Every structure is written in C-alpha cells, then in structure tokens.
C-alpha cells in the first residue's frame, strides 16, 4: 500500500502522466456532478420536509453548507500542495495550488452570500460581525491574498513560493472557523454535522444534504483538474508530447 502511494505520488509529479490519466476521469466526474446535483436538489427542494422553526427557508442549507465545507477543505488542500512544492520543489503541486485558489475563493463567496440570504429571514439581518462570519470573510481575503501572490512576482518560482507560504500561514484560520461557534458567543448556530456524534437533523433532510456535499467535492475535483490541465498544457507547450497532442 505504502509502495503504491509512493509510486502514485511520483507519477503525479509527471505532467504528461497527469494529463493522460485525467482525460479518462473527466467524463465520470462530469456525469457524477450532473446526476448528484440533480438528485440532491430535487430531493432537497421538493421532497425534504419543511423545518419546524424556519419553514422552507432552511432549504438554502443545501447550497450553503456544502459550499462552506468545501471552501475550508480547498484551502487546506491548497496549503498541502504549497507545502509539497516548498519541500520537494514539485512543479505540479504549484500548478495544482494555483488551480485551487480561485475555485476555493468562489465557493467561499457562495457560502458568504447564501449565508446572508439565509440570515435575513431567520436572524433578521444580512450580516453581523460575529466570530463565525468574520473568520469566514477572513478566509475569502486570504484566498484573494494567495491568488495575488501566486501571480505577483516576475519569477514564477518565487511567486509560487510566496503563495504557498501565505496559504500555510492562513491555515491557522481553519480551526478558528470550525470552532468559532463553540469558543465564543455567536449568532451563528453550532454545527449540525459532527464527526463524533449523530447529526441533529431528520434523516429525510440529511440524505439530500450528504448527496449535495459529496457532489460539491466531485464538482470541485472536476474544476481543479480542468484548470490544472490548462496549466500543464501552457507550461509544457514547447514539449514534443503537447505539440503532438495539439497537431493531432
């Protein structure tokens, strides 16, 4: 198993191998995203029962929670890719980190916007400066900072290094977002989905949410792979295998 992982890791470092293997994955990822999104949204919006307190307005959870989870996971993946680049100087890792940043930032923005739309009818306000909302806004700004640094410096290597360091520093914000609702008094409620306990949600509402979460991760993988393929083609444009590919 370990041997296999090490081999996979070395292979992933090869842009050509990555480009070829992902060509085969893309149709599956597209199919899963479309089917998962359709099933999840139909179940969530049409078949899940209304909430006892919030009525139908709770249904925005099917966008809000997957987007917020993904925005945090994407930041962690970006930081890991950045660390791999810093330690092993693997170019592919830098390209992956650069591909993740705008996608993660988009999901972070979606989470913030859907949260505001949800907050107005339930809390009575679009925005409060409580710990959860503020730390999530900080995550968006960290994404912007990483995106800027990844392109800021003339030398591409130095640019990637700067972006990787900021994403590693920004990593400290992730546990703050997660535990903000427990450490401090906030308007935002504590987590519904917990790793160690049963989710405090009716199964009819929970199943569509889980489908939407998995689908969002699949969709994210698709977007990042497509963007990384573009990076591969651009950086390897002078290599013979890309030329052959473009000519055929």
């Amino acid at each position: 198993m370990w041997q296999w992982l090490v081999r996979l890791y070395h292979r992933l470092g090869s842009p050509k191998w990555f480009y070829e293997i992902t060509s085969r994955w893309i149709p599956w990822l597209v199919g899963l995203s479309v089917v998962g999104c359709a099933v999840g949204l139909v179940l969530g919006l049409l078949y899940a029962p209304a909430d006892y307190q919030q009525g139908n307005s709770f249904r925005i959870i099917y966008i809000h929670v997957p987007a917020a989870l993904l925005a945090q996971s994407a930041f962690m993946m970006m930081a890991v890719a950045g660390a791999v680049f810093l330690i092993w100087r693997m170019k592919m890792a830098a390209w992956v980190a650069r591909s993740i940043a705008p996608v993660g930032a988009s999901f972070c923005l979606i989470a913030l916007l859907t949260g505001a739309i949800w907050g107005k009818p339930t809390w009575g306000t679009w925005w409060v400066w409580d710990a959860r909302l503020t730390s999530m806004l900080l995550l968006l700004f960290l994404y912007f900072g990483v995106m800027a640094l990844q392109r800021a410096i003339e030398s591409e290597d130095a640019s990637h290094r700067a972006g990787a360091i900021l994403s590693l520093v920004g990593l400290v914000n992730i546990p703050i977002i997660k535990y903000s609702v427990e450490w401090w008094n906030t308007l935002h409620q504590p987590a519904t989905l917990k790793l160690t306990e049963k989710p405090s949600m009716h199964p009819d509402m929970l199943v569509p949410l889980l489908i939407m979460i998995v689908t969002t991760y699949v969709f994210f993988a698709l977007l990042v792979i497509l963007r990384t393929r573009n990076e591969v083609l651009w950086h390897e444009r002078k290599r013979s295998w890309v030329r052959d590919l473009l000519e055929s």
Partner: protein
Amino acid sequence: MHPQRKKRLHLILFLVVGVGIAVGLLAYSLSQNINLFQTPTQIAAGEVPVGQTIRAGGLVVAGSVERDSDGLGVTFKVTDGAAEVSIFYDGILPDLFREGQGIVALGKLDDKRVLQASEVLAKHDENYMPPEVQDALEQAHKDGKQAMTEKAY
C-alpha cells in the same frame, strides 16, 4: 528523506506551529471582545456599563412578553438560566422571535437596567426536523410527564 528537504519540512512545521501559537494566544487574550453578546449573568453582575451600546443575548422567558396596546413596543425578559435582563424594543421583531427562543439584542442599559434595544436578532439552533416530529416529541414529553406524575400517586 534528503537532508535539505527535511530542513524545509521542519521550517514549514515551525512556521505553521508558530503562527498557530501566536494566533491562539491573541484569540485567547481577546476572547471577551470576540464574543458577540453579553450574557444576562454578566449584565446582572454589573460587568456592563450603563449607557454604553452592548449586545445582550439569551432565551426569551416564557410568559414575559408584553406588547404595548398602541404601537410596536414590546417588553420581554431574556435569561441564561442564572439571571434575567429586561429588554424594551420598539420595532418589527424577526419571524423566529418567540418565547423560549434565543435572541440577541443591541442597545443601551437605562437607569432602571432595562436594555433599550435598537435591534433584535433571533438565533436558531442546529436542529432541523419536520413540524410533525416536533409535535410528536412534545406529545411524548407530555405523556412521559403524565406517566411520571401518575406513578407518583
């Protein structure tokens, strides 16, 4: 592992752990300022100055909501289980406002230590369920109580 890579790995771990500790200490020292609202216990203990804008949070005490006969004014009490604070608010309450609900009110304490609120926000909890399940839970709760009192006799 190549010694230079090992060095870089250690440097990165040092960076992440160092920043983590620094931010952790910062958050710990600021924890009172990061709290969105003060609890009724803190207000009753006199930790909150009169005449300064604060946020007070707690559960609306059942039976404490009194609406003015004219206008939108409403007076109610919030509790955290240990202490209570009276709140007056003249405005439209959020839909989720009801007895037993968690709320956060922004306003100033007046001389009678009543919070004159300019904004009332409703909290909701992390539980999601259909209304029928909630009804069934309440019914079961009532039945259980009844069974217990019957047993006592």
